[in-house]
Structure formats: C-alpha cells, structure tokens
C-alpha cells in the first residue's frame, strides 16, 4: 500500500518537474547571455561571428568533455529534478551533492528510493538559498567584510576543498568502506599518473570512474564467493 502511494507520488512529481525544468533551463540559457548582449549594445562592440566561434571552440576544447561527463556522472546522486537545478547554479560536487546527501542521511533514506529523490531536491534547493544569500551579501559588502575576519579564520579557508571533499568521501564510503578506500587510492594514483601517459585533462575523471566500476565488479565477485 505504502509502496504504491510512493510510486504514484513520485511519477506525478517527475512529470511536473520535467515541464517546469525545461522552462527554467530555457530561461537560464537566455539569462546567461543577457549581460554580454547588454554590454555589447551599450558599447557598440559586438564580437564577429568568427570570433564567437573561436571563443566557443576554445571553451569546448578546454571544457567540452566536462559538458557530457559531468551531467552523466552526477545524475544518480541528483536525479532529474536536481540535474535541472545544478547545471544552472553550479558548485555541484562541493556544495549541492553534500547538501543533498545530508538531507537524505538525516531522514534515513534508502539509496535510490523515491523518498531519496524528494530529499535530494529539497536539499539542493535549500543549498541554493544559502549560497545565493552568502554570495550576494559578500558581493555587496565583501570588500569591506573580508579584512575584518580574524587571520585564523581566513587561514582555515585555504583548506575548504580538501575538507569538504574528504568528509563527503567518508560519507559516500558508508557500507562499502573497503571498496571506498581501494577506489580512493586508485583515483589518487590515476589523477597523478594518467596525465603523464597522455590521458587528456578532461578525460581523467571518466577513466577514474571506469576503473572504479571495474574494481567494484571484482570486489562484488570476490565478496559474493566468500
């Protein structure tokens, strides 16, 4: 009974979000270009089509692999509703996924369940309110606020990324602790050595993920026997 109610609820949720999502993504795509168009209009300097193409090519060469690899890699963690949000508001790995994971954790969601999908949506939306507020406050008052912070506080800021990602990784390990440690070691080694053997920067993440899945397969087979 409960299961059925959950399934009906989540399919209704998905179909509503699908329509809303497409609308917001389109808005965001337009909003993304408005400042550039505005400044070009005010100054009368428009880059030529050739220049725009060159710019786009430079962007695609540097980050193009990420356009595809990242949305696919993050999808299982953020789901459809989350994807609609995070590819507009950014900071996916270090901010949105941790917020979603915590919302799921404190409400005891089973991974991949309809409830987990709802909680990830709530978590990501909640993180947007926090980050937009903070960035806006600092954008308006930042240059005055930063020097007022104690030196010790500023020093700690230098460690934000390893600190948040280390904690998220520990959380992700969860029940598969041994596998987690194995994959972490393989990822570190991969990040150091793959670029040295000619794997392009944008592909390292993809190769690391593939290695991780292969390791999981081996782990799955060996633990199943035992």
């Amino acid at each position: 009974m409960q299961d059925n109610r959950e399934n009906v609820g989540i399919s209704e949720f998905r179909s509503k979000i699908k329509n809303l999502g497409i609308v917001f993504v389109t808005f965001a795509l337009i909003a993304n270009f408005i400042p550039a168009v505005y400044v070009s209009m005010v100054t009368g300097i428009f880059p030529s089509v050739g220049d725009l193409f060159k710019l786009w090519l430079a962007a695609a060469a540097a980050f193009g692999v990420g356009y595809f690899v990242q949305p696919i890699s993050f999808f299982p963690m953020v789901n459809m509703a989350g994807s609609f949000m995070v590819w507009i508001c950014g900071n996916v790995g270090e901010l949105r996924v941790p917020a979603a994971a915590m919302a799921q954790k404190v409400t005891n969601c089973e991974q991949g369940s309809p409830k987990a999908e709802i909680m990830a949506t709530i978590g990501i939306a909640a993180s947007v309110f926090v980050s937009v507020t903070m960035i806006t406050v600092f954008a308006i008052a930042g240059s005055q606020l930063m020097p007022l912070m104690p030196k010790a506080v500023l020093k700690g800021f230098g460690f934000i990324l390893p600190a948040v990602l280390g904690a998220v990784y520990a959380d992700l390990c969860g029940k598969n602790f041994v596998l987690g440690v194995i994959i972490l070691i393989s990822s570190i080694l991969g990040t150091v050595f793959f670029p040295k053997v000619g794997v392009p920067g944008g592909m390292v993440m993809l190769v690391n993920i593939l290695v991780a899945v292969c390791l999981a397969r081996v782990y799955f087979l060996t633990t199943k026997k035992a």
Partner: protein
Amino acid sequence: MELKEIMNSPMLWAVSSIMIITVVLQALVFMRQAFKSAEKMGIPREECITGMRSAMITAIGPAFSPVIVLIALMAVLGGPTAWMRMNDIGAARTELAMSTIATGMVGSTLEAGKLTMLGFIFALWGMALNNSGWIVIGGYSAPQLGKAVGYMKEKFDQNWVKLVMAAAALGLFGTLLSNALIKSGNIVTKNLFAGIVAFVAMIIISHFFKGNQRIQEFSLGLAMLISMYVSAAFF
C-alpha cells in the same frame, strides 16, 4: 562609457540579476513541488523540514569557496559579473580560465587595471558560451538520463546496479578529492592532511554519535570545520 564605469554600473547589476532571480525562483518552485509530493507520498512534513535544515547547515561551509573567489573576481571583472558568475554554473577556476582565454584572444589580460573594454566584452561572451554547454547538455538531457537510469534498474541485477552507482560516485568524488590534493602532479602534504582529518572526523561523527539526530544534521559541516582548523593550526 569607460570600462570601470560600465563594469560596476547599476544597469549591469540589473541585467546580471536575471540569472540569479531564475536560479532562486527555480529553487523555490522545485522546493514547493517536493513538499507537496512528499505529503502525497506519506512523508511527514517534519522530515522534509529536518532535511532542509540539515542541507542549509551543510551548505554554509562550502559556500565560502565561491565567496573567496568572488572577492578576487570582483577586483578584475567588477561586482555584477563576479556576482552572477559565482552564482551560476562554471566552477570558480573554470570562469577564471575561460575569462583568461577570452581576454588573451584580443591581447588583453585579466590583471586589474590592464583589462581593456574589448577584453571585458570577450570575457563576458566567452563565459556565456562556455556555461551554456552545461546548461544545454546537463539541463535538457535530464529527462533522458532519468529514463536511462530507470531502464538500468529494471534490466539488471539490483545489487549490481546499486554497486555500480556507488562505485561511480566513489570514482567521481575520488577524482574531485584528488584534484584538491594534487597540484601539477604532486601531492600537497597539507591538503592531504586536511583531507584525511575530514575523512576521519566524518567517520567518527557518523559512528559514535549515530543516535544523536542533531549532531548528524551538523556532521558534514562539523567534520569540515574540524579539518579546516586542525590543518590551519598545523601548517
């Protein structure tokens, strides 16, 4: 109009705010829909609020990361552009790299005071073009990816699918963590130390305070703070 004037002009603040309004409005609409659907699915409202509160607490720490880059970016590209670009897609280093490439194409540079009007305009167009890659592919492909995951869950062994997803997530975050630990091919000791402290702190909090709901809500933020300040004390 001079570059300095236009970079921080009220009109540029206004046109840059459209993206931020879109982001906030979307979060509001999605949050409302999630609460409504949760009710229909029999998830108590209090649980939704607990999840929301925990996510908000967790977000505070990591949000300082874009804040710091914001301050630096404001000095070169002006308030409105830095504000908009730190609130939308494109990691801080991506926006920096893209605007460096774009300004370089017209022989300008991002250094404060040396940026030309043409350089600024190219940086704006460059960032917009780059970000649209994620918006288009990440956004519009979301429903298709949803279908693909649903198909995988139906066709393959459940335990195996779960493990593949867990492994892919571990590989993904293993790489992100590695990127934070490794600079130009070498492991940075102090960052490695910070990563390990956070990892251990998170495990201790998750295991030893398992029954304490309040502490669990804070766990990620707490582990992060411990790591940041233990590391700052040592290095």
